[in-house]
């Protein structure tokens, strides 16, 4: 039962939302950037 609910949620809700999310702003930033000097994210201190 629980697995069925998770299945429906995953494919009916999470999949379209996730695909859109990934298209607009992928939080995991998968692509190599050959032109970039660095992948370091500098931490700002206020």
């Amino acid at each position: 039962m629980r697995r069925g609910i998770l299945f429906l949620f995953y494919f009916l809700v999470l999949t379209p939302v996730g695909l859109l999310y990934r298209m607009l702003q992928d939080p995991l930033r998968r692509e190599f950037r050959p032109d970039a000097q660095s992948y370091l994210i500098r931490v700002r201190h206020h």
Partner: protein
Amino acid sequence: MPHLALGISSYYHDSAAALVEDGKVIAAAQEERFSRRRHDPSFPAQAVKYCLQESGAKLGDVSTVAYYENPRLKFRRVLATFATAVPYGFAAFSEALPDWLSWKRRADDKVRQELAGLGLGPVPALSCHRHHESHAASAFFPSPYDSAAVLCVDGVGEWATTTLWHGRDRKLRQLAEIRFPHSLGLLYSAFTYFCGFKVDSGEYKLMGLAPYGKPRFADVIRKELIDIKPDGSFRLNMRYFAYLHGQVMTGRRFEELFHGPRRGPEGPLTEREFDLAASIQQVTEEVVGRLARTVRRLTGERRLCLAGGVALNCVANGKLAEEKVFDEIWVQPAAGDAGGALGAALSAAMGHGASRAHLGSGHDGMSGARLGPEYEDEEIRGYLDAKELRYSRPEPDALVQEVVAALDGGKVVGWFQGRMEFGPRALGNRSILGDPRDPDMQTKMNLKIKFRESFRPFAPSVLASDARDYFRLTQDSPYMLLVADIEHSKQVASSPSAAQTTGLDLLRIQRSVLPAVTHVDMSARVQTVAEEDNPAYHRLLSAFKERTGCPVLVNTSFNVRGEPIVNTPADAVTCFMRTDIDMLAIGGFLLRKEEQPAWHENGDWRTEIPLD
């Protein structure tokens, strides 16, 4: 009232607890040593009880409980991963999400409940510290430096997988980071998995395998799997990895890249695994070296502190030390997640104005990592008598002389003295010792005592004052976290045919005057022992040197494969009786195997301990 901070790491792997009093580390231990379940991820109830008992405090006396990561932030990362891994991650999603929804996202609440359940008094306020903040604190605050650069590299905590810090006095300032899914720790774990070893456990086996191979895949790794920038920052090509949407590390593309499926657990080791190990080791060293240069440039510091699981890669650490990127490096002995408990406690303590009292003493604040339980002789005697074992109790000097004579005679000795070590290494208090000059010692210890793979090397303990005569060290290595080459004068010229030898056949070649601790690439994972680090162990090494002229012993952890290092006298005696260890020196008592009655156990212990 002193300020007491209780640090806790739990629910992933290597759960631990640590207690810090006004900035001084009082006690620290991993839960696995009590539960006897290797890498135990459960709440460290017994480790917490031990830490409180050691200080004589009750839970109500503790000023703050510090948890080693931020579960809510971690949950956001897990959700983002599930969301953007669609539509391929249903299996992982359906397996993991219920736990995250029911309790993992509020792991700190569960810690409070577990603490209350111990019945040790009211639960103090609890603070969550980010995973890498805990690592950085464990690296810098107990270090002997008043200021230093700090580099933390691991698999993943919340988002960060690599962080660069600047530590000064009682403050840590984060400078930069690399975020999930780009992770050097996970890259190394992917190769660990692909070579048939267990993730979060077998990484050190892969490191030990590397010298048998040639780094012929290193260029492929650099071209296809990881883009490394000149400052050491990197990204992984996620097309090759399966950990975003599966419960495994690598998939079909990885297999295609390396010409075949992954090696099965306990399957035969081939040239491919040797070369994969050598290749990923080379890439790891390259990344760590570049990151170290970057953090040096950003901070201007001459000293470096290291933590995170990748900091347990003592070969990479040894290269850093050898290349003199920094004048000196200091590695937290519990660099993995267990050390997060200590880091969180130290971070909380420093936030409350605690001092770093060890500064100026010339030593670090880890007490030689001897932070675990100790057992009195009367307690040990009680156990030996209950088991009707035969023992003697010589004077302390006579005990040392008897042990040294046994070692010189080729015997293997269990050495159980003082407080248990914190971290994955046995440093001379829960150790199995042997004579490093004996060419058969490595095979004997691997196959008859540890019951582990024959390729795995053993480490030497050496008197700090003699270390440079035997090993090309650029600094002391008290926690066995630096690898160094054997000194030229101690190397043995090999025959011309030896140059043609490959793979595990390399084991049969004698390379130095210390064959039992010389790896196939002429390196050794050295522990330097100074008197102030560990007086009892220093005395033993000195006596061995007096008798034999050799200031070195083989030192391996007191356990068998798959088992946590022994904690109690009962654990030690059980391990002694199960294996071919010849003699046990436990507290003031000496046991000889040939004098003991037959040892009976219900069932076959070898099938009860899962292989690591």
